């Protein structure tokens, strides 16, 4: 019985492996972008920016793989939902890569100037983002809607931290207008980190749809 699906099943396994690879590339990009920011290292930042092209290329590769499967295997039901989910997930991952690359660009802009303050909340946000990306993909891999839901809930932590960063940076800007440029850049970083968590939430929605067939918007 399983024989009939051997080729198809192998392709689906390939597809999952490719998505996991893309996921870890994106996690690395977030990590490196934050290191570039924290250590004021434009070289590392440039690595992230260069790496984004590989992320984009990999994303198109997965998308093509999905199209090929749809064209040649006529997937239905759970298979179809998994493939459609894959297309959406890689799109979200690719956008997360763009945010990491954007953070790296801001790190370059900030690298010539003294750090406004030791970075604490931004690395925390990045840490949570990474964990969320990782958990959402684990949920994808194991078809686990509960894990997806739990993961999406962490978006609330990120929102709170962004707010905290905003309030803190505001006090710097009010106290000393010469900090406004640097503080604004850091605000942008915080915003990009916040958007990453939103993208992960979208991934979680797709995982839930894939596993249950129910499409629901998650908003935490």
């Amino acid at each position, binding site marked *: *019985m*399983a024989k*009939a*699906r051997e080729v*198809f099943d192998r392709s689906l396994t390939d597809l999952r492996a490719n998505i996991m690879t893309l996921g870890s590339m994106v996690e690395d990009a977030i990590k490196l972008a934050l290191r570039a920011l924290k250590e004021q290292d434009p070289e590392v930042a440039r690595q992230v920016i260069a790496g984004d092209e590989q992320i984009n290329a990999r994303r198109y590769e997965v998308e093509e793989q999905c199209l090929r499967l749809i064209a040649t295997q*006529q*997937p*239905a*039901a*759970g*298979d*179809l*939902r998994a493939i459609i989910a894959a297309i959406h997930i890689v799109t979200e991952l690719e956008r997360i890569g763009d945010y990491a690359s954007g953070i790296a660009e801001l790190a370059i802009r900030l690298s010539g100037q003294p750090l406004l303050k030791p970075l604490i909340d931004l690395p925390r946000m990045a840490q949570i983002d990474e964990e969320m990306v990782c958990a959402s993909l684990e949920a994808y891999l194991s078809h686990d809607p509960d894990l997806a839901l739990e993961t999406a809930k962490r978006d609330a932590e990120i929102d709170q931290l962004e707010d905290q960063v905003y309030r803190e940076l505001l006090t710097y800007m009010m106290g000393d207008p010469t900090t406004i440029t640097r503080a604004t850049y850091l605000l942008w970083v915080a915003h990009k980190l916040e958007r990453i968590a939103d993208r992960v939430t979208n991934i979680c929605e797709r995982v839930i749809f894939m596993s249950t*067939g129910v499409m629901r918007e998650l908003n935490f």
Partner: protein
Amino acid sequence: MGKLVTRDLRLFYGDLEALHGISMRVEERRITALIGPSGCGKSTFLRCFNRMNDTIPGTRVTGDVLLDGQNVYAPDVDVVELRRRVGMVFQRPNPFPQSIYDNVAFGPRVLGLARASALLDELVEQSLRAAALWDEVKDKLRSPALDISAGEQQRLCIARVLAGKPEVILMDEPCSALDPVATLRIEDLMRELRQDYTIVIVTHNMQQAARVSDYTGFFWLGELVEYDQTGKLFTRPAQQLTEDYITGRMG
């Protein structure tokens, strides 16, 4: 209320129960597909709608099959009239070894639907047009039906059914002997016919069921496992068994 309704329909071949109490409603002017592995009972079920199983010795039916609310198994039912109202197209095109014209005219002549020859000509043309065959055969109506292609023969068989002015058309794997292009022409035709007729099709080709039907019923070992709108059944089936079947994990 449904054009065709079955209630707890059971069919026995001798002692063997082949259909285990099927209750199902076929909507009017819609295409309903029946899918399932070989031997699951889908063709047997289809053949209950116009009592084609009567021709197999030893078959017995319990439960109801209602056409417009009337039980087709009631003792006073005229089976010939029933089969006119509920026409059937088979797996292999089976035109009579006669001319194209005579094939289509056969039913009306037997049933006395069109006595005057002008009327008969008109009915033949109408039926061939409705079966999307007229343009191909209009200049050779007197040629043998067996000379045209298999796809054309199948459309001729559909025209032959249409000439009887049916309400329901049953199709038992109508495309399994046809190439992909001829298959698509039949599917297009089904979509046309859907405006005026209720169609029930048995098919082994799941993509065909997905493409052409409004509703799909999945049969398994003589049971109707799941019956739903086609779009839902093929994306979010409610039963694991359905999922396994349509994703090729069994059968």
